[in-house]
């Protein structure tokens, strides 16, 4: 795990399962759940978020430097793990941000328990299957093909390919991440048929962010999620592929920021309204 000026490598152990984590910045806690390629490196979007938030980027159980617990069988196990994780380090008022596979985990967390969460940002989340909408099959792609599919700009893709470890298919972390990715998403393919039934339970300010040119999950999925999550809003980033946190980090950070700021303003307005009502002697019940 590589740390930088801002981010420090640490570990968290929850009921015998140790996960590696990068943590940096000051402010309200922002828990970022990574996608299938894993985490473990400080990326520019993380640095930007750390200017305003206490950013926590754990590697999911079964990924990177984290343990591979025997109990890890499906996406629900990861969701329950993170509920325990937030409890064990007593995170409260969390801004939860999930990317792709991590977005799906965030959804599975949010339909179960939102008590420790303040806002939800879903970047290109998996988890839902809508007949007729185009999806790619990352399990059938080589690492190089995955990168070519992941970006709108071929130059960004070529740079990402050049940055792959040498002989990436035999890389330990690659093999580990890919195996856990299969455990979580192979069947049913990258969705949970039962999740859709409970999306109405998400009682958080929710922002859905999509790259307009996503080859993994068509940008049409943004509206499908929005239909099912009460009060949620959609931001579509133009000229952007699936890995939007890499291709358009400024736009991604701005989508998260504006969402959190809007929620703060809304909360202040509500508080002010309550105070005004008290002054006027009106019962707030």
């Amino acid at each position, binding site marked *: 795990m590589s740390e930088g000026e801002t981010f420090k490598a640490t570990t968290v152990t929850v009921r015998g399962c140790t996960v590696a984590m990068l943590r940096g910045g000051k402010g309200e806690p922002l828990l970022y759940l990574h996608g299938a390629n894993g985490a473990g490196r400080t990326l520019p979007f993380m640095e930007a978020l750390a200017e305003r938030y206490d950013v926590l980027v754990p590697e999911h159980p079964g990924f990177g430097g984290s343990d591979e617990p025997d109990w890890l069988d499906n996406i629900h196990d990861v969701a329950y793990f993170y509920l325990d994780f937030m409890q064990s380090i007593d995170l409260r008022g969390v801004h939860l941000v999930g990317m792709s596979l991590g977005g799906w985990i965030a959804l599975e967390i949010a339909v179960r328990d939102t008590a420790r969460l303040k806002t939800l940002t879903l970047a290109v989340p998996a988890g839902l299957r809508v007949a007729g909408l185009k999806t790619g099959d990352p399990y059938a792609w*080589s690492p190089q093909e995955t990168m070519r599919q992941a970006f709108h700009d071929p130059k960004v893709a070529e740079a990402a390919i050049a940055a792959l470890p040498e*002989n990436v298919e*035999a890389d330990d972390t690659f*093999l*580990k991440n890919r195996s856990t990715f299969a455990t979580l998403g*192979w*069947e049913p393919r990258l969705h949970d048929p039962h999740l859709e039934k409970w999306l109405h339970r998400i009682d958080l300010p929710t922002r859905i962010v999509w790259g307009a040119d996503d080859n993994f999950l068509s940008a049409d999925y943004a509206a499908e999620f929005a239909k099912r999550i009460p009060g949620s809003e959609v931001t579509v980033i133009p000229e952007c592929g699936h890995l939007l946190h890499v291709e358009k980090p400024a736009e991604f950070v701005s989508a998260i920021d504006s969402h959190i700021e809007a929620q703060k303003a809304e909360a202040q307005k509500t508080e002010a309204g309550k105070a005004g009502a008290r002054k006027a002697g009106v019962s707030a019940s």
Partner: protein
Amino acid sequence: MKFFYFHLMPYADVDLDAVKAVGTSWVKLPNSNYDPKKGAALYNRYLDEMERAEALGFDGVGVNEHHQTAYGMMPSPIVTASALARRTKRVKIAILGSALPLRSHPLTIAEEHAMIDNITEGRLITGFVRGIGAEYHVFGVDPTESHGRFHEAHELIIRAWTEPGPFEFFGKYYRHRYVNVWPRPYQQPHPPVWIPSQGSQETIDFAAHPDRKYTYLHTFSPTVAVAKYLNMYRERAEEYGYTASTDKLGWAVPIYVGETDAKAMAEAKTHFENFRNIFAKMPIEFLLPPGYTSRESMKRVIAAKQSMFADLTLEAAIEHGMMICGSAATVRDRLVDYQKELRFGNLLTLLQFGTLPADLTAANAERFARDVMPSLREVGEDAVPEAVDA
């Protein structure tokens, strides 16, 4: 040694250029490339070839299972074995094998194999495999569960064949309130089990275990690999405290017998190279989906990627022992040498491969049966049969 006529039943009429354009005959080659009229003719031709094997004196016929591919038209080896069950009278019918993790209910395999064993009055050889990587893409079975499902399904099937039912079985993957398979197998306690594989320590340990002593069949590999894994089986057996008899070891290899060495080479070349370089080819993402095998095995395969995925000429295949080709005398000599080196007791001959047409396949089988097989019968037979466990 015992001789089996092994067939893959390729869709030999496939448009080879279409396969080359898609890059593989597996999973992604559109099934619009399958012409049912041509396919029907091939099915009947191949079944005729296997039935003929009995008249030619083979000890058995072998069939296998592959899905959504022109490489083999046998998504169900049970269907092929059933078609052969009443058209043959003497030969063993070896299903090599049924892919256990691909079935949502492996008890159906226990039932169907037991039916064939009854219909043939005990001529069934059962084989169990995991299915190759591409098939995990086809069926949406999580490849990281492949080993777990294989072992649990195997336990369920063997218990269903050997323990009085009804009993309960509650595993991680398969749960049955009632296990009570009808019919019971004809052979008691159950049909012989063969394990076809391209080699892994885990598979050898499993097959050689004294509770099982399953026949290990090494398929389509360079002889250095065949030697390594057959030796590994013998060593594991010694460590387990017994000596493995040659009938516990088998080798599957394409063979072509021509009138002369030169004629054999000329007749086999294109068809073998089609088999190896067009029908068998698939991208690594299909061959090795994530978690399908241990990370160390993955790394070994990837390290050998260049040689594994490169095209192979007939000449190079012969040099590596991945093909035996020549006049009857040449093939006989090679087999005697290989048997000395590898010490197998079962030879699974692939006498039709790739696009090899009916006339050449028939001539190949006739020559092999007439001019090669008889003199090799005694080769590789143990002087003293393995003592039966008390």
